[in-house]
């Protein structure tokens, strides 16, 4: 049992409590401790990324061994897929905290900000590294409640309203999930994901868990803001402070939404075609409608938030195609390709959407506005922000040397190979509209003539913000390397294998 696994949760929790105890006595303690905590976590997660490979590491909390091969304690599980998400969480988290050092300085009560940030990270790490469905619920609540509070951090009208909306829909999702857990417990009398898989048996009469499937899909769909359940996302993501928007859009909807949906529907439920088609349809709808809603926006952060819905649609659609093929039991290699494309796009989206929100924060920090019509000519006064946002915009629109291109290409190729020509065409069209939308963003924000009025002097943002943006833009470039053979096998393939080999996860964990 690897003692690093519980540390993923223990370190940020200890950090949060220590900030609340000592923060008021020591100056700058909050910033330093939060950065150190996140740096440590990032190092640990990269250790997992490079050392996990095909292995599944299980940590039995409390040392409770299985009795008659039925797990009785809570299991923490780290496998290839988990390791990737852990890296995303903790790396983007570290960069956001570092960015916040300057950004949050203008707010009051910074202690609360850093403590809640650490708690949010602890919650997400807990969700991702858990192998027990009720445990997922508990840590989901930690991350959700801290994000509700962080959205309202500015305590202005807008933030409070967005936070209320987010809380109501989040609470609805939580109780749907809890009810579904009760339903699963009623049938299987166990809570361990691997053991639920065993207890449900393979295929056959699946009447009894369709209710749980529907409720879990609705609940986690609400958390992930898939299309019919997206109402809270544009408000919450645009009202929050920018580092938090980067975390919410870049990480939270993936870690507590998409990740859990993928994990549960691949490794816990037996894949069936109706559910797979439903998931693909939801993904396609989000992809198409999200981008059309985005194109009319003039508020930068709302524009980015709608693009998040659209890009998450790509991921869900691609994974759904994989599920359809797997449920039919045909063309396993195409299914693998589709799932790979989805996961790759998930990683890429974390990088470029995090970067774009940090850019938006930098623009807001310097100019004091989020309205595209009031900006212009910023390329001269803010060269670094301009350059990094250019990289991110090209990435998200899928222009060749950048990472977004490769993941979208894989998704489209997989859709064509699976004979879903309509979906492939839609993915291409949406990509073009995304490009148009981001050209508008670039033109109005950075290159257009600035409107003639007495301007206050606009300067480039301070070093911590620049550092985070530059690092993320380098990551955007480096991530395209993942597609090449040799690197792909060590990072992407283990993650795909654990998902596309349906019983590997449960047989390994039950067999311990």
């Amino acid at each position, binding site marked *: 049992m690897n*003692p690093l696994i519980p540390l993923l949760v223990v370190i940020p929790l200890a950090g949060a409590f220590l900030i609340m*105890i000592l923060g008021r006595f020591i100056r700058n303690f909050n910033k330093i401790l939060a950065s150190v905590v996140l740096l440590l976590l990032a190092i640990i997660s990269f250790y997992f990324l490079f050392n996990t490979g095909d292995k599944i590491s299980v940590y039995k909390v409390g040392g409770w061994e299985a009795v008659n091969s039925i797990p009785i304690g809570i299991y923490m599980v780290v496998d290839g897929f988990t390791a990737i998400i852990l890296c995303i969480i903790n790396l983007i988290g570290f960069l956001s905290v570092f960015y916040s050092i300057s950004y949050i300085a203008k707010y009051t009560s910074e202690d609360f900000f850093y403590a809640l940030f650490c708690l949010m990270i602890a919650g997400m790490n807990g969700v991702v590294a858990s192998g027990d469905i009720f445990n997922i619920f508990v840590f989901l609540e930690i991350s959700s409640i801290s994000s509700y509070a962080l959205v309202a951090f500015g305590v202005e009208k807008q933030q409070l309203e967005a936070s209320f909306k987010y809380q109501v829909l989040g609470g609805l999702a939580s109780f749907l999930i809890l009810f579904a857990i009760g339903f699963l417990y009623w049938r299987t009398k166990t809570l361990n994901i691997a053991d639920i898989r065993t207890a449900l048996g393979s295929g056959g009469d699946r009447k009894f868990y369709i209710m749980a499937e529907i409720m879990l899909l609705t609940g986690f769909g609400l958390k992930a803001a898939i299309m019919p359940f997206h109402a809270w996302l544009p408000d919450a993501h645009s009202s929050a402070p920018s580092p938090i928007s980067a975390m919410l859009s870049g990480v939270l909807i993936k870690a507590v939404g998409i990740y859990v949906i993928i994990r549960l529907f691949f490794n816990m439920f037996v894949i069936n075609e109706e559910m797979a088609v439903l998931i693909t349809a939801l993904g396609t709808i989000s992809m198409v409608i999200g981008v059309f809603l985005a194109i009319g926006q003039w508020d930068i952060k709302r524009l980015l938030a709608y693009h998040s819905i659209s890009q998450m649609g790509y991921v869900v659609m691609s994974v759904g195609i994989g599920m359809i093929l797997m449920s039919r039991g045909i063309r396993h290699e195409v299914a693998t390709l589709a799932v790979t494309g989805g996961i790759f796009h998930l990683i890429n989206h974390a990088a470029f959407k995090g970067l774009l929100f940090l850019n938006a924060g930098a623009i807001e920090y310097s100019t004091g506005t989020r309205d595209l019509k009031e900006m212009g000519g910023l390329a001269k006064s803010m060269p670094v922000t301009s350059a990094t946002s250019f990289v991110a915009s090209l990435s998200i629109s899928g222009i060749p040397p950048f990472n977004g291109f490769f993941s979208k290409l894989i998704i489209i190729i997989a859709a064509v190979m699976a004979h879903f020509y309509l979906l492939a065409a839609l993915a291409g069209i949406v990509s073009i509209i995304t490009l148009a939308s981001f050209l508008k963003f670039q033109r109005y924000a950075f290159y257009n003539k600035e409107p003639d009025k007495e301007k206050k002097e606009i300067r480039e943002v301070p070093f911590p913000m620049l550092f985070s943006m530059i690092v993320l833009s380098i990551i955007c470039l480096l991530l395209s390397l993942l597609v090449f053979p040799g690197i792909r096998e060590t990072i992407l393939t283990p993650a795909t294998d654990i998902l596309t080999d349906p019983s590997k996860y449960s047989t390994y964990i039950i067999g311990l």
Partner: protein
Amino acid sequence: MKGMTTIVKQTTKLIAGMIFMYGIYVIVHGHLTPGGGFAGGVIMAGSFILLILAYGSDFLKLLKEESGTTMYENLAMIVVLFLAVSGLLLGTHVFFLNWIPKGTVGHLVSAGILPLYNIFVGIEVAASIVTIFLALIIFKEEVSK
């Protein structure tokens, strides 16, 4: 916030102490009888809330207490976390290990580490709920000023 009448104040003075003692009883016997850290903690918080409602207090004193209760809360959580990690630090390297000897079932000192968890979670819950309540009251006072 103003206090209430003398009758209420005197009765509260009598009752609050008893409620507090009952909360402690529920916490300490958590591993033997129904109840435990959560129930006992909320009961203890109830006695404080009763006192605050009956007596009212001036605003500055409340502000001080709010930071104090947050402190208690986080200290208790640190202790809980430390108890959880203590298993990891000992020779066995197991998170959440109940490593203290179990004793006889049914005795007050038994069940190893569980009573300690109960006590500190109880303190944490009591401090949390009092803090929430104080935050609401202080907000009201500050706005009405």
